[in-house]
C-alpha cells in the first residue's frame, strides 16, 4: 500500500491541570458562563415579548463548551462559533449590547440586521459568522488553518459542531483534509445527545470521536460540563496544533437542556435524562470551584446582571436598520480586498506571559 498511515488511537479523557489557570482565570471562566446564560435568558424573554423576530436558539446547560474552548485561544487565532456557542463571542469581546441588538435585528447588531440570532461572527474579533448548513464551518476553519500553515504562522483555527452535524459529508471532507495536511485546527464536537429531536443512535453507530484515528489524528472525549476540562483539552490541542502536531477532535460530552429552539418542548427527551444532567450544570460546578477559592460569586453574578441590564437598555434603544439599505453590500467594493478577520480578545493569563 502506497499510503503513509499514522495510527493515532483516541486518547483517554484529559484532566484539568489547574497549573494553567490562575484564580482570576477560573472566575473569569465563570463570569463568561454567567454572562452567556444571562444574555440568553434575557433574549428568550425578549423573544417571548415579540422583540426577537424569527426563531430563538440557546446553549443553556452547554456554556462550558464554548466558553472553555474559546478561553484557550490566542488573539491571533480564528474561530467559527455555532448556534450553541454564544460564550465564544463574549470571550472574544463582543458586547452583550451588540449581541442583544443582533438578536432583535437592530442596526447595532453584528450583522446590522441582515442575519438573525446566533448566525453571526464579528470579523473584528477574529470570528467567521456561521453558515446555517451544518457543519460547513468545519471546512472554513480547516481552510484558515491551511493558510496559517502555508504561511508558517503559529496560529490555529477552531470550530464547534454538534453530534448531528457529524453525519454530513462536510464533516468527513474537513476531517480528512485536516488529517492529510496535518493542519493546526481544532474540531470541538459538542455532543449534546440530540440533533433537534434525533437521538445519537439514529445519527451514528459508533461515537464519532473514534473516527479521529481513521484520519490520522488525536480524538479525545471529555466532560463537556466541566469548563476547566474543556479549557485544558483545548489548550493542549492548541499547543499541539501550533507545534505542528496536527489537528485534534475534542468531543465535549454535554446535554442540551432546552428544546432545539424556543418552539420545542422536547417531549421526545426522557425526563430522567434531563434530571440527571441538571445535577451536572456547568455553572453550578464552576461556582463551587470558584467559591472554594474564596471568590465572591454573588458579587460576580450581580456585576453580570448589572452589565446585562445596561446592555438591554442600550440594545432596546437602538434603531432598526433602514429599509433603504436592504440591498446594499451584496458585493464588496474593490478596495475591500484588504478587509480580513482581525484579532480578538484572549483573556487567558497564559497568553499574557
Amino acid at each position, binding site marked *: 500500500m502506497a499510503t503513509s498511515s499514522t495510527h493515532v488511537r483516541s486518547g483517554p479523557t484529559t484532566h484539568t491541570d489547574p497549573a494553567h489557570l490562575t484564580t482570576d482565570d477560573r472566575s473569569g471562566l465563570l463570569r463568561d458562563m454567567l454572562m452567556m446564560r444571562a444574555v440568553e435568558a434575557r433574549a428568550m424573554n425578549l423573544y417571548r415579548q415579540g422583540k426577537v*423576530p*424569527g426563531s430563538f436558539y440557546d446553549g443553556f446547560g452547554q456554556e462550558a463548551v464554548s466558553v472553555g474552548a474559546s478561553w484557550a485561544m490566542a488573539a491571533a487565532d480564528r474561530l467559527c462559533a455555532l448556534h450553541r456557542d454564544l460564550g465564544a463571542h463574549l470571550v472574544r469581546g463582543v458586547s452583550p449590547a451588540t449581541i442583544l441588538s443582533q438578536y432583535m435585528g437592530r442596526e447595532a447588531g453584528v450583522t446590522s*440586521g*441582515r442575519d*438573525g440570532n446566533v448566525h453571526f461572527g464579528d470579523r473584528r474579533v477574529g470570528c467567521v459568522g456561521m453558515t446555517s448548513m451544518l457543519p460547513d464551518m468545519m471546512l472554513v476553519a480547516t481552510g484558515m488553518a491551511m493558510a496559517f500553515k502555508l504561511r508558517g504562522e503559529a496560529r490555529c483555527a477552531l470550530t464547534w459542531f454538534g453530534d448531528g452535524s457529524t453525519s454530513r459529508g462536510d464533516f468527513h471532507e474537513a476531517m480528512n483534509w485536516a488529517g492529510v495536511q496535518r493542519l493546526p485546527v481544532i474540531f470541538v464536537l459538542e455532543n449534546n445527545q440530540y440533533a433537534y*429531536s*434525533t437521538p445519537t443512535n439514529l445519527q451514528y453507530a459508533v461515537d464519532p470521536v473514534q473516527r479521529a484515528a481513521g484520519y490520522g489524528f488525536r480524538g479525545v472525549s471529555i466532560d463537556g460540563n466541566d469548563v476547566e476540562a474543556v479549557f485544558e483539552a483545548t489548550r493542549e490541542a492548541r499547543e499541539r496544533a501550533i507545534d505542528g502536531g496536527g489537528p485534534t477532535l475534542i468531543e465535549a460530552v454535554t446535554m442540551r437542556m432546552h428544546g432545539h429552539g424556543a418552539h420545542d418542548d422536547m417531549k421526545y427527551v426522557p425526563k430522567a435524562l434531563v434530571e440527571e444532567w441538571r445535577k451536572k450544570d456547568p455553572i453550578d460546578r464552576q461556582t463551587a470551584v470558584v467559591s472554594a477559592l474564596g471568590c465572591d460569586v454573588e458579587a460576580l453574578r450581580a456585576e453580570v446582571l448589572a452589565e446585562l441590564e445596561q446592555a438591554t437598555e442600550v440594545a432596546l434603544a437602538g434603531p432598526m436598520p433602514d429599509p433603504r439599505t436592504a440591498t446594499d453590500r451584496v458585493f464588496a467594493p474593490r478596495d475591500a480586498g484588504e478587509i480580513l478577520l482581525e484579532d480578538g480578545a484572549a483573556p487567558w493569563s497564559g497568553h499574557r506571559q
Partner: protein
Amino acid sequence: MSEMTYLKAISDGLRTEMRSDERVLLMGEDIGVFGGAFKVTDGFFDEFGADRVMDTPLAESAIIGTAIGAAVVGLRPVCEMQFSDFIACGFDQLVNTAAKMYYRQDLPVNITVRLPSGGGFSGGPFHSQNPESWFMHAPGLKVVAPSTAEDAKGLIIAAMRDPNPVVFMEHKHLYRRVKGEVAEGSYETPFRARVAREGDDLVVIAYGAMVHTVLEATTDLAGASIMVLDLRSLVPLDEEAILDAVRHCSKVVIVDEANETCAAGAQVAALIAERSFEDLDGPVVRVASPDCPIPFSPPLEAAVLPSVDRVREACRQLLEY
C-alpha cells in the same frame, strides 16, 4: 370536503397515498417522532411506524441518494428537506443522479422531494430561499409549487405517482395562513396552470405564496379587470395557458418571490417575449426579490420581498401604459 390549512392538506395528501400505496416511504430529519420541523408529518410515526416515516441522519445528500436507490428497486420515497435551503447539500444527487437517470438509462426515479421554501417570517438568508429555478434548469426534474390547500393535496399525490423525480415547493408562509376546502380521499391536481381569477385588462402570472399577494394586490384596482394565473407547475410549464392569457389580456406582470435574475419569472418573461410579441400592448413587467440574500430583520426583509404595494404599483403603471 372539509376545510383545512395548506399544511394539513399536504399531510392529508401524504397520508392518503401512504394508506393506499405501501411503497410510499417518508424520509427526513426529525419527521418521525417529532412530526417534522413544521409538523407536516405529525402523527405519521404512530400510524405508519419508524420504517415508513424514517428519521434520518443529518445528511441531505444521503437522503436524496438513498431515496434514489430505494426508488429504482420499487419504493416511492418522499424526502423532506427541513428547509428548502438545505437542498444545496443534496444538490448533486438531485441534479445529476436523479434527474438524468431516465434519460441515460431508461430507469425512472420515482422520488418526491419536499422543499419548505420562502420567506416572510424573519428566517434570514438560510431559511427563506426559493430555489425552484435551479431545478427548472436541471433537465429531468419536474417542479411544482401549489398555492392553495386543494392543490397542495392534489399535487403532492400526483408527485408521488409521477414516475419522475418531482421537486415539490411548499411555501412555509402559506402553511397556516392559507385555508381551503379540500376533497376527501384521493385526487390528483394536473401539472398545469389554473386561472385563479378571470380578467381582461391585464394578467398577473405567479405561483406559490405570490398568488395570494397578487390576488390581494389586484382586488379592486381602479376598476380594472385583472386576471391572475397560478402556474402551479413550473416544469412542465404550461406554456399554452400563459400564451392564452397574454393573448387575452395583452398586458402581463410576472411576480416571483425568488431573486430576480434567472428566476422562474425570467423564463416566463422570455417565453412571452418570444411567442406573444404581436399580442403585447406593453412591456413584460416583472416584480421579484432583488438579487440579495433575504435579510432577517423585518424592515429589511419587507423591503426585499415583493409586497402587495409593489405588485399593485406595477399593475397600475402597466394599465396606464
